[in-house]
């Protein structure tokens, strides 16, 4: 067990990396070479696919749009979830358990159910094809998640700290910002990470709610895949570029990922 134990995670990681390697491999090939046949690595190494993405506005605007709505959503979700999570973790109030359960059901609501009504709702209020529409729509599952994770982290902080602060004459807002938030800083970081993550990877709603002005990168990719025949190299390069932001943020929260995935409840 001791000597061969490391083999299992190693094999698993190799399995995880193979498709990513293949994507990377394809992204450095020319279209001719891709269609020419099977090869383990690019023979004519090219950066053309990446160059096209960085120079063609329909491509790089996709990235800007995606990052814009993801950022709006993350800020919005975390800031409204903070006081709510505090209320759930510290107080009992009329209907609190039902409310918590109802919030949770929205995390479980299949986006496929909401795609069409969302399209009509956001068209009706004139937000269709804006970043705000996607950011608000993603609140549907991100706010419940944020409340849930934050509540888990906040319940780990003893109440005595709150009481001591009030005795020392702190007002609630001052206590919350100056004392409480630094205490759960890692929890806030983890929550922001998860909001970022779920907003970044979701595509059904993002695609449904946009057409031109706020079109996310994932929608640009699907359109390329379906309209211009088989530009696999370009598609692969775009795919590689969507993985990078995730890989960067994940490094920052590496010590808390496990706890975060357990929704703060380990």
């Amino acid at each position, binding site marked *: *067990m001791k000597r061969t*134990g*490391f083999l*299992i*995670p190693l094999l*698993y990681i190799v399995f*995880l990396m*193979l*498709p990513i390697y*293949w994507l990377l491999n*394809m992204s450095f090939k020319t279209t001719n070479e891709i*269609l020419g*046949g099977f090869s383990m690595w690019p023979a004519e190494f090219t950066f053309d696919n990446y160059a096209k993405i960085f120079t063609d506005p329909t491509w790089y605007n996709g990235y800007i749009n995606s990052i814009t709505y993801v950022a709006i959503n993350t800020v919005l979700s975390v800031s409204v979830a903070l*006081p*709510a999570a*505090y*209320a759930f973790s510290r107080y*009992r109030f*009329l209907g*609190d358990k039902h409310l918590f359960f109802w*919030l*949770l*059901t*929205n995390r*479980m*609501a*299949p*986006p*496929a*159910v*909401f*795609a*069409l*009504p*969302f399209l009509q*709702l956001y068209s009706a209020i004139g937000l269709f094809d804006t970043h705000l529409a996607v950011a608000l729509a993603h609140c*549907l599952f991100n*706010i*419940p998640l944020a*409340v849930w994770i934050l509540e888990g982290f906040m*319940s780990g902080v003893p109440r005595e700290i709150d009481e001591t602060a009030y005795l020392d004459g702190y007002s609630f807002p001052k206590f919350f910002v100056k004392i409480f938030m630094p205490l759960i800083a890692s929890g806030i970081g983890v929550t922001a990470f998860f909001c970022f*993550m779920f907003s970044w990877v*979701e*595509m059904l709603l993002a695609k449904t709610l946009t057409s031109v002005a706020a079109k996310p990168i*994932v929608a640009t990719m*699907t359109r390329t*895949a379906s309209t211009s025949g088989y530009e696999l190299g370009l598609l*692969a390069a775009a*795919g590689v570029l*969507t993985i990078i932001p*995730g890989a960067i943020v*994940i*490094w920052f929260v590496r*010590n808390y*990922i*496990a706890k975060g*995935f*357990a929704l703060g*409840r*380990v």
Partner: protein
Amino acid sequence: MNKTWNNKAWFMVLPVLLLVAFNAVIPLMTVVNYSVQETFGNNLFFFEGVKWFREVLHSDRFHDSLLRQFFFTGTILAIEIPLGVIIALAMPRQGFWVPVCLVLMALPLLVPWNVVGAMWNIFALPDIGLMGYSINALGIDFNFTRQPASAWFTVIIMDVWHWTSLVVLLAYAGLRSIPDAYYQAARIDSASRWAVFRYIQLPKMKRVLTIAVLLRFMDSFMIYTEPFVLTGGGPGNTTTILSIDLVKAALGEFNLGIAAAMSIIYFLMTLLVCWVFYSAMMRGEDE
């Protein structure tokens, strides 16, 4: 922890309530509305009662996609949960490699869902994809756009690739919360590897594994983008699971009544599972 009773806490919850209600209640009411009405265009609607529900519940199409959904969910749970636990048990407990492993393993979780589909599409292509080419080179005929069995195999292995890490991370978090003293006691009693797993590690992982099973269950019910990009529900209808069928009916065929009735049934099913999940979690919390 005993909490104080304070109804003013409602004010802190209000912003969340308003935002989520805006996104959840209005669309849900729209769906309910469609599910009981018939339209002939021009925004003219007629009340139809439960006609659509009866139609959906009796249609073979719905039964088939529901069956495929259960097959998919059952298979991935049977693979991902044991595999995730095995990997978490074999992970190093401390040292330089821990963060490296965690970051590499969490990577698939951060790939946008349609990129996952596109990536596996490229990876499984029978002529130029690494997996498709290798399987064909072994002498097995493999083509996921034509053969139902290959399509299912690809969809399932894609989901294993995408989500097993979630189970690993959860199980690992559970394992790390076990104090060293437990293991020392086991060593003094010269307990076998199996006994350590059965009586120390498994009970400590029970709670996170409940989260894992139920999260995976629900997410596999919601899954849409990856199989849609990979196979589009094909070949034929063989991999058309519930959500793909639903979007096809709503946005593809604009069959509003049917789609809405399906949505409601679908939503009630997830709600039921959600309730089971919530009560299981809360019981765990009270203990």
